């Protein structure tokens, strides 16, 4: 007998009673998110555990200037990896753009679909215009997030219908406590996360 038939035979494949799984989703047990969503999100984002920074800007057109200020603040030249994402359409002519991602890319820009106020998480999906690897290779991860896209809970991240190859939630910077329990930022991924919250000032 095949391993599949063996395992499924042993376990049985009868369906659970209708509604049983849904009942376990009803009234989810989760932290309360009260007050302004954007404010709550920004507070979570700036907690030491997350270690991110942010700036609020009016429109995407303001992003290049904000990115230039951020890079200058870190004594970095105006050079970035910029994916071909329509959410990032602005005048980036003042920047040196990497034609392809490199293993030690200093700064990477990306556009998040959602922000989660509960945890300060950013939600991304893979798509033809949204590569995944750059968001883990860069040392400085600079993310544009529309203020209107900030939502209360992690449950809100679920996408209906066919899924992309990957949906990934980023909560702060890459970290490790693997050597003597000491917290180190930038284990493999970004050491810095800077969020530009666009609109709704």
């Amino acid at each position: 007998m095949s391993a599949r038939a063996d395992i499924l035979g042993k376990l049985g494949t009868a369906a659970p009673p209708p509604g049983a799984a849904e009942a376990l989703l009803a009234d989810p047990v989760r932290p309360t998110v009260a007050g302004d969503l954007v404010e709550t999100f920004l507070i979570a984002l700036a907690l030491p555990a997350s270690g991110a920074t942010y700036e609020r800007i009016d429109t995407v057109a303001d992003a290049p200037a904000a990115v230039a200020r951020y890079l200058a603040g870190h004594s970095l030249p105006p050079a970035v990896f910029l994916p071909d994402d329509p959410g990032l359409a602005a005048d980036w002519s003042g920047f040196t753009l990497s034609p392809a991602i490199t293993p030690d890319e200093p700064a990477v820009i990306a556009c998040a679909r959602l922000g989660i106020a509960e945890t300060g998480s950013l939600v991304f999906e893979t798509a033809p215009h949204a590569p995944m690897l750059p968001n883990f290779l860069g040392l400085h991860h600079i993310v544009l997030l529309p203020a209107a896209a900030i939502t209360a809970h992690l449950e809100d991240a679920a996408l209906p219908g066919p899924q992309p190859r990957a949906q990934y939630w980023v909560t702060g910077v890459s970290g490790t406590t693997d050597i003597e329990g000491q917290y180190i930022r930038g284990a493999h991924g970004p050491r810095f996360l800077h969020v530009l919250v666009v609109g709704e000032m």
Partner: protein
Amino acid sequence: MSAAFAKRVDAALADPILKIAVERTAGTAEAKRAIAVDGFAHFEAARTRAAAIKDHVVAHLGYYLEQFEAAATAAGAHVHYARTADEACEIVIGICKAAGARTVARSKSMMGEEIGLPHALAEAGIGRVETDLAEHIIQLADERPSHIVWPAMHKTSEQVSALFKQHHAQPHTEETIPAMAESARRHLRSGMLGADVGISGANFLVADSGAVCTVTNEGNAELSLVPPRTHIVTAGIEKLVPSMGHAVQLLRLLARSATGATLTQYTTFYTGPKRAADPDGPDAMHIVLIDNGRSTMRDEGLAEMLRCIRCGACMNHCVVFRQIGGHAYGGTYPGPMGAVLTPALDGLAASRDLPNACTLNGKCQEVCPVKIPLPTLLRGWREKSWREGLEPATMRQGILGWAWVAQRPRLYRLAVRAAIFGMRRFGRGWIRTLPMASGWTAHRDLPAPDSESFMSRYARGER
């Protein structure tokens, strides 16, 4: 106690560094968890819900496996089933060979350890790059994980420094932990980007979408699973959840219980290989669903153990683990959850010491995010070991003898008086050595009994 287990425990207790190292990691984790739990007003209700979600899945595992398989297949993934660890390794090695793999990048997975994947890859001549920092350290040291969340917690920074200087092309020059982490970052980058196959475990398998969820705080899973042409997942069948909404409720508890975070830094749901127009991602995704004793555990009284989400809180809070660390347990999984799992995975005859190496103080059950009754399950193994006659003759005779006396109250009281008299000859307050009690007194003093037993004081009218 078996000689092998006693030897491992003796070595652990005699190690002057180990105790400090375990305290550093487990103590920090304990403190951080406490803060996280205080910050989540509904933590207790969340535990009850989480246990209910896992129980629901475990009761309908076959149904959710079929649903997951159909959804993952529709998304373009290949789903395989493995009854045993050997079958699982064979499947993984087969896929690696078919892909012409010379090296694989591995993202830390306890399932990989459980099935012996590092060994199987070595036997097949396939290079292995462990990308989690702790797994990288123990790969260089050629050791096994000592904790399910912090596999290298037994290593000091001095030991890590020496390993990196020996193995890294451009090691750190400054003797600081940040400099060591930077050295590993430099060293592992090419291994991750140049691997032919990326192998991960799964924290959750989402039945309705066919997604595989991984959780890391370093981002090494993503760096290991995006560049290679092939992504292989090895996952226990108990990792299923009906939907992302169910996974989310467990993720909240997993992060708080393991590291004290509200959510681990990187939580990723992978559904099938890259889509045609995607700029990156693997061309093929294989998911190996592994039973390895789980269906038997479900049917033979260990269904509650299948709730486990591998957070490590039980070991961080265990008084025995805090003394002896992880290696002394001798199995893939240490601590209380390991003491329940190892007899199921490796057989009770070889591991009957583990359920006995427990004080039954109940702390593990108290902190378990999915309310596994670990002390009850450990007692179950003790009873089974007794029924199957696995206890050594001296132990059986001793317990039977004690039971015989205990059922005769006058004789028992007489024996207690004699024992008090005898023991107090060896010390008042603390006893440093006692005949037939060297197992205790070799490592610590034994408190001397009071001059009178409780029963005689009670009989005298003392209340």
